[in-house]
């Protein structure tokens, strides 16, 4: 189990603010992500989910504690190594897709790989393969403005996966999608995870969406409050998540 660790967080503390006034957003988080994990983090708005994800995905720095990614402590390695790590080991999906409007979906998906100096033949091949997996083969020539939200988000997922990262970080990937598109995206992500392509670390407030994960953590007030693991089926898991959410006092929707 230990050799398969992708990311490990120990006693993570994050403060915001100046010397005079600091707010502690994360108050000591311990977390381990292994190569086949599919983790969903839930929690009320302002509980620090995005902050946690940003720190894990090297966008932000922790105040205290260590964050290990692919065996490197990201608080200690040089900027150059950090950008190499970000480039090769991590894939990111955002709530607002973040596709570039200047290029077609195909170019958007191929972008990270083509910038890494990978042969164009390989770029094209992988783009097509991933597009097939996410049901986008017919939309590759289209520009983002010609695509639906669901298609855009699946495209963003393809882009995140094209460099064969060890882990995908997704911040509210279904936040801007209707339920059907959200379901479709989650199905695809689950397939990616099941086939062993990448671990997934996802932040969401939607229990239905979270029920696709293998483990659900509930973050509240900067602390991990509980962890639920999937048992027999998704339906049953969903019910347990709902129960947990109700017992924590209401629903987590919307930032």
């Amino acid at each position, binding site marked *: 189990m230990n050799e398969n660790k992708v990311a490990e967080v120990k006693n993570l503390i994050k403060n915001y603010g100046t010397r005079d006034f600091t707010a502690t957003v994360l108050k000591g988080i311990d977390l381990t992500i292994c190569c086949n994990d599919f983790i969903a983090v839930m929690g009320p708005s302002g509980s620090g989910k995005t902050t946690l994800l940003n720190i894990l995905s090297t*966008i932000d720095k922790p105040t205290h504690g260590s964050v290990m990614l692919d065996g490197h402590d990201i608080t200690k390695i040089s900027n150059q190594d950090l950008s190499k790590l970000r*480039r090769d080991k991590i894939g990111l999906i955002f709530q607002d897709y973040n596709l*570039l409007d*200047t*290029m077609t979906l195909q*170019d958007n998906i191929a*972008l990270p790989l083509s910038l890494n100096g990978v042969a*164009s033949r390989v770029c*094209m091949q992988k783009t097509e393969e991933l597009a097939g997996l996410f049901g986008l083969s017919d939309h590759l020539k289209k520009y983002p*403005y010609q695509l639906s939200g669901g298609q855009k988000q699946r495209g963003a997922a393809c882009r995140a996966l094209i460099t064969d990262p060890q882990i995908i970080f997704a911040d509210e990937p279904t936040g801007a999608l209707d339920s059907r598109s959200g379901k479709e995206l989650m199905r695809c992500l689950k397939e990616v995870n099941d086939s062993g392509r990448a671990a997934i670390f996802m932040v969401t407030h939607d229990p239905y969406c979270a029920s696709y994960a293998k483990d659900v953590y509930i973050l509240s007030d900067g602390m991990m409050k509980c962890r639920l693991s999937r048992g027999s089926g998704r339906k049953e898991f969903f019910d347990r998540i709902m129960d947990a959410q109700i017992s924590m006092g209401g629903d987590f929707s919307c930032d």
Partner: protein
Amino acid sequence: MRLMQLAFLNFKNNLKNYLSLVLSLSFTILIFFNFQNIIYSDSFEVLGTQNKDYIDIIVRVISFVLGCFMFFFLWYSTNVFLTKRKKEIGIYVFMGLTNQKIGKMYMIETSLIGITAFVLGIFSGIATAALFQMILLAVSDIAVEIRFQVRIEPVFITAVVYLAMYLIFVIKGYCNIVKSSVLSMISASRQNEYVRQSTPVLLLKAALGACILGGGYYLAVKEGGQEVMGNVMAAVVLVTAGVYLLFGGLIPYVFQSVARNKKILYRGQRNLWVNSMIFRMKKNYRTYAIVCVLTLCSVTALATGFAMKIRHDNMVQFENTYTFQFLSDQPDIGNQAQPLIEKYSEISYRSDIPVLFLDNVNVSNRSFAGSYAVVPYSGVMRLAEQVGLSFELKEPGMDEVIEAGHLYLLSLLTDRSDITVTINGKEYRQIQETSEPYLGYLQEQAGYYIVNDAEFEAMQPFGQSLYTSNFKISDADMFEAVRDELNVLSSNTEENYTARVAVDPKSNDTDWVKVFYTLCIFLFLVFILASGSIMFMKLYNDSFEERPRALVMKKIGIDSGTLGRSIAAELGMAYILPFAVMTVSSYFSVHALEKMMHTSLFSVRIVSVLIVFAIFFFFYLISVAAYRKNVC
């Protein structure tokens, strides 16, 4: 009142941001003012009224061009303010301001910027006016003392032209803001539905552009007679139109083809910058075309200036071959004159040759309404030896002539083949032409043909036989004294016809050409700097739009080095495209000039293109720096 304060606050903040724009605006005003000032200053009056009149005409033409140019410049720079203001409009809408109020605020703010630039420009213009004229005269190699003087007319004209244009764009911006819908401005990701243009339309434009441009090039260098002027005008229009179509058709087409070919696209940073280039092409191609045409104009202006100068210097040299020339029916006119001249100055060289003025001459392909004369071949050969001129003419046969022509400042006749000369009903073939100044000033006053000695004798009955005698004095200061002395020889009676020509070695009759030459150099620099600034402003403007995209790239893990390289490539392409088209086009335009001026401009062509390259490179570097600073 609050609006005024807000506008003033904005102005204060923007002044720092847009310092470069304010400075370039005031630079434009400075240049325009300085040219106006030439018309009203009396520094050039010493050159004589005729020179002054020529210079005024040239300066007026240049002022007009500068005015047009100022118009474009204001357009671009006010656009920069407008883009920025429209970006922030959402904030003001939520502050409760109406579109009209925001528009008014924009007007106040831009007016303040415009007036600041104006005041700065006028004052620096006045401060540099004397310097400007000093440089102008120094480069022109004219010695005149310059007094510092300020006249109200140039200030007034500059103010009216600049402020009127500025007002137009301020009002245009106001209308733009008032009419714009808030929603479209707030929405962060503006949808661009015209990313890719349709291929057939592009191909059509490209084909049309290539044909028109090719036609323009052909007309520019086509040889011809009287129609050359028309050809050149047509070439200017065609090349301008062709450049527009080329940038609107061929270049987007090539880029779109590259974008379609993923094997080429997915290499280096191309995926980023090629797509970005295509995305902006529809909006930017006019700028590329304008910059291309502008640089083409400036290179051509420089070449024209140089050609005029070279030509002028040659002509002055041509006319100054002799100081005094006599045309007389007295065979010993030279011997009469020589002692009179030698009283004052030594003679550098003297030459004598008989000429025969003919009444009945027809020259094909030429409508020179003047008198014609013939000179004997052997006489010219002897003359060349006496004067030290080169003589590389082969002896004409009985039905052949050699034209001894002269230099023109600008000749529209570029087709010089197959000329026949009919003298008294007999047809002669022109086998050669020379512009060696065998007969000096006289050679400019009539058409001269060198004929076989025997033929010269045979023609005697058909015309008036005269003798010329030509002197060059070695002491130029003695010119006036000798001229007065020689007055006694002039005569126009039945038994003695003697005409005297005196060429003042220190004459400044044609100094306007020197000023013209210097103005051309100025114009060249102004236009090139202006093209560079237009490109800079355009790209700087683009960089605001690029910001959110750069943020996206940062988010998905594209490091700033990669983004920087992509920016460098895109901006490099933006500068190279107009430069390349300009270089090719300038080959033809300068070639056309070379033919009209009979002057080789090879080095001018190379140097001007290199200077454009260097200046563009400088602007490229600051563009990349500004763009990166704004985006990364």
